[in-house]
């Protein structure tokens, strides 16, 4: 089943054309990658899907609904079903770690407080952070820890759809691997559909079911085996020389 369907998307900033006629779809339960060089508009594309950026031309459907034509209640129920992990975490600086993780649960569910606390601490453990970090504030955390807390915050609400903006950038190799394993685990057991923006070759090879590569136009759509056998020079270089950064 198609969860997200993007059709004929055009985006331009001034004279600079970022997306030219991009169409693709994301199926239920898959881990889908959006790849491309720096400045190729990956983040813009994903931010258009989550309604942070305006769609200039074209159509995006989530759960078969055109997102530019949603009423306020549809919008709320849609937003409660997806989570967005920002590149640098975007934790609320005035809340501590545990409050950050439980903020959506407190706002949108009627769960008793002790259960919310259990959920928050459990998710903290899932992303591999020790219990004593619970009462710290974001300013007291390292970049990698912020990212993990943000991941815990995204998972706590049990989204159907998860957007991750470079989830492994800035993490050490061991943490990268554990995040990758976690993503695979969640996909398998919770049926979460995931859209990832990533540069990490390891993630591309081991985690992604399918991905697109964009460079103004969509230049590739498929899985890693298809990409490796592609004759396109850019794709080859993209997937082999990429390790350097």
């Amino acid at each position, binding site marked *: 089943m198609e969860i997200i369907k993007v059709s004929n998307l055009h985006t331009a900033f001034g004279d600079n054309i970022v997306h030219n006629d991009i169409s693709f779809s994301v199926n239920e339960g898959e881990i889908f990658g959006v790849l491309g060089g720096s400045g190729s508009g990956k983040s813009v594309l994903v931010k258009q899907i989550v309604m942070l950026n305006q769609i200039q031309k074209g159509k995006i459907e989530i759960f078969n609904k055109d997102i530019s034509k949603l*009423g306020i*209640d549809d919008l709320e129920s849609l937003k409660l079903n997806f989570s967005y992990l920002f590149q640098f975490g975007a934790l609320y*600086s*005035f809340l501590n770690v*545990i409050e950050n993780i439980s903020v959506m*649960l407190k706002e949108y*569910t*009627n*769960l*008793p407080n002790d*259960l919310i*606390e*259990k*959920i928050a*601490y*459990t*998710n*903290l*453990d*899932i992303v591999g952070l020790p*219990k*004593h970090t*619970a*009462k710290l*504030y*974001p*300013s007291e955390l390292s970049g990698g820890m912020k990212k993990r807390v943000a991941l815990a915050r995204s*998972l706590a*609400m*049990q989204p159907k759809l998860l957007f991750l903006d470079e989830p492994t950038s800035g993490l050490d190799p061991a943490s990268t691997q554990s995040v990758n394993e976690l993503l695979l*685990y969640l996909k*398998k*057991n*919770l049926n979460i559909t995931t859209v990832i923006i990533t540069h990490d070759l390891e993630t591309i090879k081991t985690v992604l079911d399918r991905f697109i590569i964009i460079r103004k136009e969509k230049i590739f759509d498929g899985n890693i085996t298809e990409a490796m056998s592609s004759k396109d020079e850019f794709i080859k270089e993209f997937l082999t020389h990429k390790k350097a950064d």
Partner: protein
Amino acid sequence: MDNINYFNLKEKIAKIMKSIEYFILEKQEDGYKFNLLNIWDKQTISIIIEEIKSLKFHPNKKIYIDFENLKELDSIAIIYLISFLKKFKKQNISYLNFEKYEQIFDFYQKHYQNEFLKEKKILNRFFENVGKKVYDISKSTKLFIDFVGKVFYFLFYLVVNPKKIRFKATLKYIETSAVDALLIVAVTAFLVGVVIAYQGAVQLEKFGANIFVVEMISITMFREIAPLVTAIVIAGRSASSYTAEIGAMKITEEIDAMRTMNFEPIIFLTIPRIFALCISLPLLVFFADIVGVMGGMVIAYTSLDITYIEFINRLQNEVPVKHLLLGVFKALFFGFFIAIIGCFRGFQVENNTTSIGKYTTISVVNAIFVVILLDAVFSVIFTQMGI
């Protein structure tokens, strides 16, 4: 209309959700059998919790959980189930038709957390906060002294190496802190002049001493009101903007970048701002003097019938110029302290977004307080000196 329908719809959905059965509890000889039904997720779990709360369980009995007819189970419901099952002994719990959920259940069981960090007691927190506050104040006082010391060190350094003075930056700050503030200073000074003249006029008229309004307006304006009002306006305007600018640079690591390139932030950021205010605040005060007295003149003319020529003649003959010079002299110090406090608080900003707001507020409050304090000190000194 649409909205009303929608709310009805929401209520209806809530009612339907409540009327659905989420489990069937069978009491057996040795315990309970729980048949889970329908959907257990973040929407339905609060209803389920309410229902289960009203039931009583004997902790030593066995419990069988049957997942056969369950359609959906999400992580929130799993965590609840785990916490619910903690009531029973581990060996007494059996899961039936568990294949579909076993793995994810085990996963959450592995990560499940039951104990949290405790909040500290109120009394302990009180003492902790008092201690922290005292420590903070003493620390920031030390830092401030250190900062002022550095500023003077680099001021002397610049006296020896005048080529390193950032003239362009200084001009830019004179423009943003003084030229752009001309209008607000003019309006404030004019209005204050009007108010003083108006209040004075009523009293002086009673004694038939109309003409003394000239001395009253000009001396109060020159000595106290114009320097104070201008300094407060500039403290609100520039201290806050200096703190926010430098704070934002600190968060984006621009200041660290400057240090690695051996651009001393005090020479590049602080001293041009101090120069700018030390030069422009006295000029602004002079400007405010003129506009304030003009305000007074207008009132003197309209309500006391003192013509502009009369006013200016009396001003020239009866009001010594020392009052004006004293006010302008004070403004130099006000400018110095406003700039130094604004910059100091900017450098104190920590690496998070709320601290910019926090330190901007502190810097404005400090700057206004210091202006008033200095004014009081000057007032005592000048009176003792007999000027």
